[in-house]
């Protein structure tokens, strides 16, 4: 009898341990996605998408009503001009939904779904991109789905499925004529926004988890896990490596005139001049790996490190101040008015607002 109990206990223990590391609808599967409008922060964090009032850090609503193991959110929500919140699930149902905060169920305080799209075969990690009335939505199944935002359908069908390669983890960017999409399969694609044809496609020898950025010179810049910054001609795809970095470049570079700011996983923060093709100053190394993109402020840049700190770095590379938020910061912060919003992992709170000097204003944690 004792042996039987021991054996059954072993099986239960094994099942529980396996289940514990299965992911599912728990916080910490990946880092949160954060977007903010003037008044509201939208946080995609595990089982729920939260809307948080920026004036006091209180929850306005969350979606869905109850945790569903098939729904996991960490793609940054996209807010449309008519106020819909579009967010994809990284759970097993692979749905992309548009929720309408203006249409709340009074009994549950949960916003109604305006439409859903369920044709994708893998996780949604990236935000889609709106071009006119079309939505270009990259999925980890390697497809870029084009949806018509104006068709009035509640169950959307793809207008076009553009088959690319590898997992698409980053929000596309556009120059108005083409949409540029990066892939973990070492590739970058340029797609015509009207015909949906792939205009060009280049392999750069390393996975690209971040988005490209269009510099003031009209060229396209992107970092990669090959530890390089690459420059592309957006019309032809002709490209060259313009900077070797110390480690993987995960974040999307941020353009400020002819300067690009970005960090690498060794914790180096670069200021690259697109005109001279060199660094404005030697890379500074705050205190930890950098996966989040920098945030441009008037006279400085905000930078988050994995070590849980926020740095304000002057445009001359000098640190103006830094503040410890805690936990680990991988999500790109958001700056709205005087507030800096930060969503760390491994903290008691999910979101915090700092003032322009880095002092904490409020924290948000969902009610249990």
């Amino acid at each position, binding site marked *: 009898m004792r042996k039987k109990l021991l054996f059954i206990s072993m099986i239960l223990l094994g099942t529980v341990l396996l289940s514990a590391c299965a992911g599912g609808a728990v916080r910490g599967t990946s*880092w949160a996605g954060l977007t903010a409008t003037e008044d509201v922060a939208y946080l995609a964090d595990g089982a729920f998408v939260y809307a948080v009032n920026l004036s006091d850090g209180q929850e306005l609503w969350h979606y869905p009503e109850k945790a569903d193991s098939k729904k996991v959110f960490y793609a940054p929500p996209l807010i449309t001009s008519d106020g819909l919140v579009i967010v994809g699930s990284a759970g097993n149902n692979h749905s992309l939904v548009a929720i309408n905060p203006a249409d709340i169920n009074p009994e549950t305080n949960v916003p109604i779904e305006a439409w859903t799209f369920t044709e994708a075969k*893998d996780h949604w*990690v990236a935000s889609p991109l709106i071009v006119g009335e079309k939505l270009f939505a990259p999925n980890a199944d390697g497809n870029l789905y084009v949806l018509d935002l104006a068709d009035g359908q509640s169950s959307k069908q793809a207008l076009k499925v553009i088959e690319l390669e590898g997992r698409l*983890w980053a929000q596309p960017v556009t120059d108005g004529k083409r949409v540029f999409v990066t892939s973990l399969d070492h590739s970058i694609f340029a797609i015509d926004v009207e015909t949906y044809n792939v205009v060009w496609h280049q392999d750069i020898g390393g996975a690209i988890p971040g988005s490209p950025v269009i510099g003031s010179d009209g060229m396209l810049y992107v970092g990669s896990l090959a530890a390089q910054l690459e420059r592309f001609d957006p019309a032809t795809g002709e490209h060259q490596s313009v900077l070797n970095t110390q480690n993987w470049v995960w974040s999307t570079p941020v353009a400020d005139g002819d300067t690009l700011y970005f960090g690498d996983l060794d914790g180096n923060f670069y200021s690259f001049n697109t005109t001279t093709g060199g660094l404005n100053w030697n890379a500074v190394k705050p205190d930890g790996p950098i996966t989040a993109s920098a945030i441009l402020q008037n006279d400085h840049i905000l930078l988050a490190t994995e070590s849980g700190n926020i740095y304000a770095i002057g445009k001359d590379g000098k640190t103006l101040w830094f503040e410890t938020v805690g936990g680990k910061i*991988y999500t790109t912060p958001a700056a709205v008015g005087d507030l800096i919003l930060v969503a760390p*992992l491994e903290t008691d709170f999910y979101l915090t607002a700092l003032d322009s000097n880095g002092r904490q204003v409020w924290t948000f944690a969902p009610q249990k």
Partner: protein
Amino acid sequence: MWDLFISLFINVLLWIYDVIGNNFGIAIILFTILIRVVTWPLNAQQMKGAKAMQDLQNDKEWQAIQKKYAKDREKLAQEQMRVYREKGINPFGSCLPTLIQFPIIIALYQSIIRALAATPLDLLKLSRSINTDFLDVSQLIPLNSKFLWMNLGQPEPYYILAIVVAVTTYIQSKLTLPPSTNPNDQSAAMGQSMAITMPLMLGWLALTFPSGLAVYFVTSNVLGIVQYAAQGKANWRNLLPKGMRK
């Protein structure tokens, strides 16, 4: 410590993946064979322990003390321990090796999940687990997760693999059940019960978890069956319905 263990698994898995030309399914199969070879002494000990316990159930002295001290559990336990000592049997000899294998299964599961890096956080963790001295990380990542009709990072959608896992687990469990003539044989009863519950449990895991883990289960089961058969210990009659076993 646990992370070091996972890192070791990941590096070996990725090394195999690199050497065989970027097929993660084949890498898992080869890695399973490697694990099976490394844990061979544990399996052998488990089989030996199970056989010894089975033989004990048919031992006359053992049956006598069961009968004699049926109402005195303390005395029965003392006598059982004496018999164990005299015959050199470790009562947990068949369980402990299984217990030791659980961390290996869990580590393998975590290694597969981390290597396939379905989320940004997994990819970041993977970058820290790889030894860049002997693996060209930028070329290897992302891993090719396609194997046959499956995406190894996701549950297999057609239930085929779950059924194969359940069936191979059932066959392996049945083949390793030694015949018992004693109707009160507790370990035989437990074996019969496990032959039903284990396939169901592993089948459910295969249904729920990434198919890479199910590939491990199937490979491990098939290797187990081959191992028993090669040693002449497979009890093929157990696969037949009860009435046809004689």
